């Protein structure tokens, strides 16, 4: 296990040291070469000045201007030096002559002898520039190399974090398997362990929740069935024995048991269709055919309430989905429409396609739902108006929650709106084709 901090610190220090030291050495070498050239040039100038003294009339161009004064008379001057004194001040000074700015040095070793030497300022600056540029050049050139290497080292050091993040972002909602990483740095190790422990705890909790709800519903199913049979028998016996039930206690008891039975069925279905647990078995299916089957299933109930139901739009609509879940979705929507519509009401199913989406619209002319309730009706166990729903219809408050889960499972969308009838609810489901 490698520490990110140690790796970054050692490698970056090594890189900086190496590049800076190599740049310093290169700079040293370059300056040494320039200085050598400078000293050679000084030697050349000195040799030329001395040779000029012995070659009368020589006007060889020199870098330096030189004057020698003796007893106030100019006894020697180089080609570039003027006939008048280049400087009256002792030591270093700057003056203009011969169309240039000069750095002048005047020395009077004895009262009778004065030596004045001058060098063009431009030439001095040029030489200084050359030496400085030579020393800066390697440092400036090394900067892009340093930047590139730092980028490579930091990218390399942070790659485990990047891989960790990529694994987390590519995880599906129901994938609670541990994250596996090679070469985990010390700093990431604890985070990885904690994340994996969290995933394990979440998986356990989901499993417990799933089992609990499913087990409770399953365990309640049998005694409820027995209760229903006994209630039916008791009701028959009461009828045969001529016992009257003026307060309707038996009917209320039967309705309560029926509601509890429906609730348990819905809880079990909710568990089966929960996206966190449900492993969809997607297959190519015909949504129109599925709708026809659901309408046929519900037809006795619809007919009993003298309701009208019609299926409009496409006769075949092929899409990929889980047959069981989609059938449950359509069944819950049709069931709700029928349950909450009055006797003689109308229900309409319409199938269409919109670009990459299949659209199923189920609407009725029931009382509908107020728009402020739209977002809440998908909550589990939520019923508009509470348990005392004005329709008096038996319900669990889970139907639309199941529908929403199935839509999420198929990566679709669901929306509610006002029906095209004079009143009622319109449910629009969009599913990817």
């Amino acid at each position, binding site marked *: 296990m490698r520490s990110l901090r140690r790796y970054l610190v050692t490698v970056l*220090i090594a*890189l900086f040291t190496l590049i800076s*030291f190599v740049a*310093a*050495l290169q700079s040293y070498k370059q300056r040494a070469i320039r200085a050598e050239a400078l000293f050679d040039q000084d030697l050349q100038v000195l040799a030329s000045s001395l040779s000029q003294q012995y070659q009368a009339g020589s006007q060889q161009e020199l870098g330096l201007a030189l004057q020698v004064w003796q007893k106030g008379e100019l006894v020697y001057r180089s080609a570039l030096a003027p006939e008048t004194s280049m400087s009256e001040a002792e030591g270093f000074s700057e003056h203009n002559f011969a169309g240039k700015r000069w750095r002048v040095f005047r020395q009077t070793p004895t009262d009778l002898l004065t030596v004045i030497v001058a060098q063009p300022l431009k030439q001095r600056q040029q030489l200084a520039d050359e030496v400085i540029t030579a020393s800066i050049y390697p440092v400036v050139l090394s900067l892009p190399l340093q930047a590139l290497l730092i980028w490579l080292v930091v990218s390399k050091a942070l790659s485990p974090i990047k891989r960790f993040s990529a694994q987390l972002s590519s995880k599906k909602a129901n994938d609670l398997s541990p994250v596996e990483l090679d*070469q985990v740095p010390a700093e990431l190790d604890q985070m990885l362990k904690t994340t994996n422990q969290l995933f394990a705890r979440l998986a356990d909790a989901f499993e417990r929740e799933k089992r609990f709800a499913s087990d409770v519903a399953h365990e309640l199913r049998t005694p409820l069935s027995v209760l229903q049979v006994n209630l039916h028998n008791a009701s028959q016996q009461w009828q045969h024995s001529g016992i009257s039930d003026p307060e309707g206690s038996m009917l209320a008891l039967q309705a309560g048991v029926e509601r509890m039975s429906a609730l348990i069925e819905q809880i079990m279905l909710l568990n089966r269709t929960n996206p966190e647990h449900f492993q969809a078995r997607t297959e190519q299916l015909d949504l129109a055919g599925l709708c026809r089957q659901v309408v046929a299933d519900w037809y006795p109930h619809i007919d009993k309430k003298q309701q009208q139901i019609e299926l409009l739009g496409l006769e075949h609509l092929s899409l990929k989905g889980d047959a069981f879940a989609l059938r449950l979705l359509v069944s819950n929507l049709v069931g709700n429409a029928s349950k909450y519509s009055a006797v003689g009401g109308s229900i309409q199913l319409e199938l269409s396609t919109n670009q990459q989406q299949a659209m199923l619209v189920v609407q009725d002319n029931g009382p509908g739902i107020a728009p402020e309730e739209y977002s809440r009706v998908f909550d589990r166990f939520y019923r508009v108006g509470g348990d005392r729903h004005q329709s008096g219809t038996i319900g669990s408050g889970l139907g639309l929650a199941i529908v929403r889960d199935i839509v999420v499972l198929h990566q679709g969308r669901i929306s509610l709106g006002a029906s095209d009838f004079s009143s009622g609810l319109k449910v629009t489901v969009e599913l990817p084709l």
Partner: protein
Amino acid sequence: MLINTVLMFLRELLPLCLLLATLLVWHRSVWRSFALYFAFPSLLMLSLISLQMVWISEQLDGLGLELLYSFLYLSCFVLLCLSALKAQWALLSSAFAAACLFSISGSNLLLYIWLPGQAENTPADLVLGSALGVGIGASIAVLWYYLLTELKQWRIQSFALLLSLSGARQVMMTSALLIQSDWLVAGPQLWQTEQLLSEQSELGFFLQALMGYEATPSLSQVLLYVLCFTVLFWCCSLMEKKR
């Protein structure tokens, strides 16, 4: 001069740093033991050679020091072969191999620092030059270590190759010293690559430290190099097969 000090330190330290980095990748899990096994014989040999340098150099008609260095370079190669062949001796013998190289480099550097002719080097030159040399050598070693670690993670079997090159380099140094002492016949010069890659260039310098690059090798040097490289590579391959 500053540059001479830097070059001297680099010439002596770079091969040692590269060998140490390579061996540390090998013995990463037991690096503390490796450091201990390396430190004790290194300091002992360095002290002995440094204290007895005058006496050693006077032996064998004034060739004592060259021949001792040849022996140490050769020992380094033999110990590397041994470490590859015998797993139980790997840690000890590879640490001793590095110690042999350290004693040569260390004594040469001590000689350079304390040589009477050092008057032309100012103390500032010496301090700055040695700091630059040590800094560059250590930095290359750190980067080399992480490069080899990276290659190892990518399952690239570079270790056998690099260790064999390093081992053969020590034999190359032995042969150069023996030829210089007239103990080995050089034979004809095989090629001349000075124009293509100078030994004085940065890359030439690095390759010299890594694998004993020679711009003008003689026949005997090349034969010895190829032979020793093959032997050590075979030993390393055997070791990797055993793993």
